[in-house]
């Protein structure tokens, strides 16, 4: 059995008595691509907030390999190797594509260590790799604000990839994309699996079919089911709670 990359152990948070996430336990193995499904309000984004430190959990632990990263400051969790992509693409709009990647490439994280110019050969070639991977090489000098929606999503994804995180949390990476863009995003994400462990929240079922081997379903803050896409499709509880009577379209 592969090593556990991300271990979520009875994690929970309650907002004034309301348990948005309640005793969720799951393990994402090294190199795995896990899709998180669930209806609106199921707690998927909140779960990502808890892992990445945006929201402090009130119960349970999160481990990244052997490190306990529960409730650390956001930048410390990121430094440990958890990359987070937001649902609303967030990039540095007044900087060029290349500069966006450069910000992500500043690996030495003290202010004074970054009082210096340019990047070493290794980081520069890494930036080139990711420019190619995301198909943004021709637009490297373009301001991020003038990219298309899909390109903006890839830019943000690329910023994470450049840092070689151990675990990538992707919150609806194809939201608002055209079919062609969705297809390309799936290719990028598939190419990341294996080298990184990924946890992806997604609604687009065609996309899920393209990327997922293993699915976890959440409902009302709790884990409902876990399994392959076929198992999930045929699980009666999932069908009634989330998919409705039609199954996965």
């Amino acid at each position, binding site marked *: 059995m592969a090593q556990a990359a991300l271990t979520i152990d009875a994690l929970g948070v309650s907002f004034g008595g309301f348990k948005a996430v309640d005793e969720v336990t799951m393990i994402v193995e090294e190199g795995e691509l896990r899709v998180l499904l669930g209806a609106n309000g199921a707690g998927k984004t909140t779960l990502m907030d808890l892992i*990445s430190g945006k929201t402090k959990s009130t119960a349970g632990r999160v481990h990244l390999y052997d490190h306990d990263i529960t409730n650390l400051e*956001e*930048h*410390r969790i*990121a*430094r440990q190797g958890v*990359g*987070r992509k*937001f649902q609303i693409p*967030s*990039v*540095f*709009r*007044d*900087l*060029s594509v290349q*500069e*966006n990647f*450069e*910000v*992500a490439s*500043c690996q030495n*994280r*003290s*202010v*004074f260590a*970054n*009082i*210096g*110019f*340019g*990047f070493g050969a290794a980081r520069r070639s890494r930036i080139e790799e990711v420019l190619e991977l995301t198909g943004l090489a*021709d*637009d490297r*000098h*373009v*301001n991020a604000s*003038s*990219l*298309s929606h899909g*390109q903006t999503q890839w830019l*943000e994804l690329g*910023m*994470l990839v450049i*840092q070689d995180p151990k675990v990538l949390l992707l919150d609806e990476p194809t939201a608002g994309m055209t079919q062609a863009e969705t297809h390309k995003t799936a290719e990028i994400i598939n190419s990341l699996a294996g080298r990184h462990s990924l946890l992806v929240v997604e609604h687009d079922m065609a996309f899920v079919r393209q990327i997922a081997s293993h699915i976890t379903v959440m409902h009302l803050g709790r884990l409902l089911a876990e399994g392959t896409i076929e198992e999930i499709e045929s699980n009666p509880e999932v069908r009634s709670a989330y998919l409705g009577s039609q199954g996965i379209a």
Partner: protein
Amino acid sequence: MNRSKLALDLATYLVFFAVILALPLFYDEFWLNRFAKYLVYGMLAVGISLSWGYAGVLNLGQGLFFGIGAYMMAMSLKLASATSLQQGADTPVPDFMLWNAEPGAKTDLCCINQGSFLWIPFQDQWFGIAMSIAMPVLVAGILGAIVFRQRISGVFVAIITLALVLLVRLLVIDAQPVTNGFNGLTDLGWFTILGFEFDPYVVETYYLVAGALILTLTGTRLLVETRAGLILQAIRDDQNRVRYLGHAVARYQVFFFCVSAAIAGFAGMLYTIAAEFTSPTFMDLAFSITMVVWAAVGGRASLIGACIGAILINTIEAEMSETEELVEAWKAIIGFIFVMVVLFLPRGLAGFAHDMTDLALRSLGLAERETGTAARDVPLPAREEA
């Protein structure tokens, strides 16, 4: 950045430096003293541009750091003045302390009043110089650590800094025995290095200020070109994204806030040398807001733009207010210019110059494509075969 643009940028800096270094060829000492003050204002605008344009932190209390820098220097210069040295004691004592001394108080900084001992180290001019930078940095560091660790941003930072400068102004006026209250510190001695006395009305003093401005502008520009400067601009655009990339956002904000304060303190120190006084009016709200206006007119996103904006506005103001026909109208005209610039040139004069350069470069076919995918297949304008 495009190579031709980088060259243009460099050329702009060099031309600006050449112009300010050449001013003594065309103006007399009276005007040079004025220009020295305007260059100090230019330096203030550089600090504003750094914090507002690059860091996205609108500081409406920059006068606080300017004022602290000015007072620290003025304390040293006050002790070096003839009147302070001739108070009948072995060590200098500021005249205003004597006027208000309790009967029988010992004429010495140690104990002429309760707070006068604070002045003792300022007998060394270098202590005054060091403090005029160190104190603003210290205050900015503490303030920044509180504000930025709490993730306070936007208009709330503006309100906090605004309140703080007013508070300190009140304290300075209130601490009359130590600060001479609302009179400020006047009748100062001359700044002296290695025996050379910087009379405010000699060309050397102008060059001192001009050199300091060139140093500050160059240093700040290099600083924003570093990786840290890039991260700072990223923080301005989306600080959460930077945070989730693993950078300690608050530390970058505090660091650059301190740099901005150091520039303002340095400016305050030079202003005191050139103007021979310091006063609580430096911490007036109006002055802090005026600095922001200079930077807005010049272009807050450009260090040199903000700097030139400040110098131009002050020169124009001086010229107009002394033109007889405009004595009544000049303030209205300046106000009108401000409104026009904000309405039609939201990125200030620097933004306008930037757009014009872009246009010129594009028509020459030198500009790299910077407008997004849509423009990819637009052919460059054919150049005539000569």
